[in-house]
């Protein structure tokens, strides 16, 4: 074998082996970290104070710290007798470092106690949230005469009603989530129903 061939063979070995050897030396105390990203290891171990976190707003840290919050109701639901539209507003903060869009929310609303169908809810228009941005999301539902009468009857002895969402469809950031049934607890009955 001539010198050029030997030199080129040594070069091949050097450029193949050296980076891996360097990485093994860097991760010699934690060889698992050589393969699995440290962020994933932190997630598995539940380590909230990772030194490997990227910035203070690391989304994984946020999720671990339960800073991801479900939408919060803003005020009481409103009812417009002229359009027979029931509306409720929720505040939601995008905890991610990437924009997200809420393109669709649709669901049926039923009474949790007796399964009475109250109406369908939807959002007025798609919503786009930049990282960290908080926005109010308003959902609306047009009530039938039967639903209005039902709520009026309920309002005689209680000021709120426990409701379920059925066939809930949410299109969030390109992910379609479908739930057959989800209880969302007590919602106050709008006083405008009696106006």
């Amino acid at each position, binding site marked *: 074998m*001539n010198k*050029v*061939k030997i030199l*080129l063979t040594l*070069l*091949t070995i050097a*450029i*193949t082996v050296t*980076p*891996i050897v*360097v*990485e093994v030396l*860097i*991760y010699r105390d934690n060889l698992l*970290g*050589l*393969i*699995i*990203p440290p*962020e*994933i290891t932190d997630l598995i171990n539940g380590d909230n104070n990772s030194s490997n976190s*990227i910035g203070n707003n*690391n*989304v*994984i840290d946020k999720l671990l710290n339960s800073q991801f919050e479900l939408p919060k109701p803003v005020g009481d639901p409103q009812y417009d007798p002229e359009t027979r539209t029931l509306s409720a507003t929720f505040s939601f903060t995008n905890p*991610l*470092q*990437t*924009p*997200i*869009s809420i393109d669709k929310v649709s669901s049926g609303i039923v009474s949790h106690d007796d399964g009475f169908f109250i109406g369908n809810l939807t959002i007025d228009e798609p919503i786009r949230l930049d*990282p960290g941005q908080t926005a109010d999301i308003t959902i609306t539902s047009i009530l039938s005469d039967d639903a209005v009468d039902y709520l009026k009857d309920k309002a005689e002895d209680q000021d709120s009603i426990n409701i379920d969402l059925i066939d809930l469809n949410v299109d969030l*950031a*390109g*992910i*379609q*989530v*479908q*739930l057959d049934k989800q209880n969302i607890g007590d919602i106050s009955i709008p006083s405008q129903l009696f106006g």
Partner: protein
Amino acid sequence: MTFKKLNWFALIGGILLLVLIPISIYVSWWKLSVGDDLLTVNASPVNTSFNVLGTQLSSGIIWAVNITSILVFLTCGIIMLIYSAIPAKPYAKDLLGYAYRKPLYMVILYLAGLLVTLYAAQAALGIGVPLAGSSTITLPASLSIGANISVMVSSTFQWPFWLAIATAAISIAARIYHTRISSPKQTTQSTSNGAVTPTTVTANVQK
């Protein structure tokens, strides 16, 4: 050195190999996007990155593979350029032999790695990710916490991948062209004691 003596295929192949490095760092060969870029994977031999919910993830072994790939492309490009200028030198064939196969090997290994990864995702998580194209995947029940969750997944090979294939093809063409321009031609001749020695013959003598 005259232009006639240049191996033009090797010259172009060498330039493309060197150009391919910065291009592949900034534009991946293959891109996977889940949802509205909630998860993106940009994969090329010289730069592979994962972005999950806006957070960049890195792995030591992938970094090492990327550095190795950069060094392979770099050395092959430089050696191919050196060879292209001196294709008639006695050691030229060794230089070409080092450089011309590796671009093809890189493309094949890259594709094999991609296929194995996608197969592993299918086998381990039950999630079928297309090699190229779009599809809607439904998360298995074990991952969807009682809900039906489906998400649009799209993947595509980007133009640097096709450039890499073209580079590999040109590198092989350089090897084929080498046989035409290498002069004088060499044959082997056995001596009486069985040793094989190179003998230089010209085209005229062969006639």
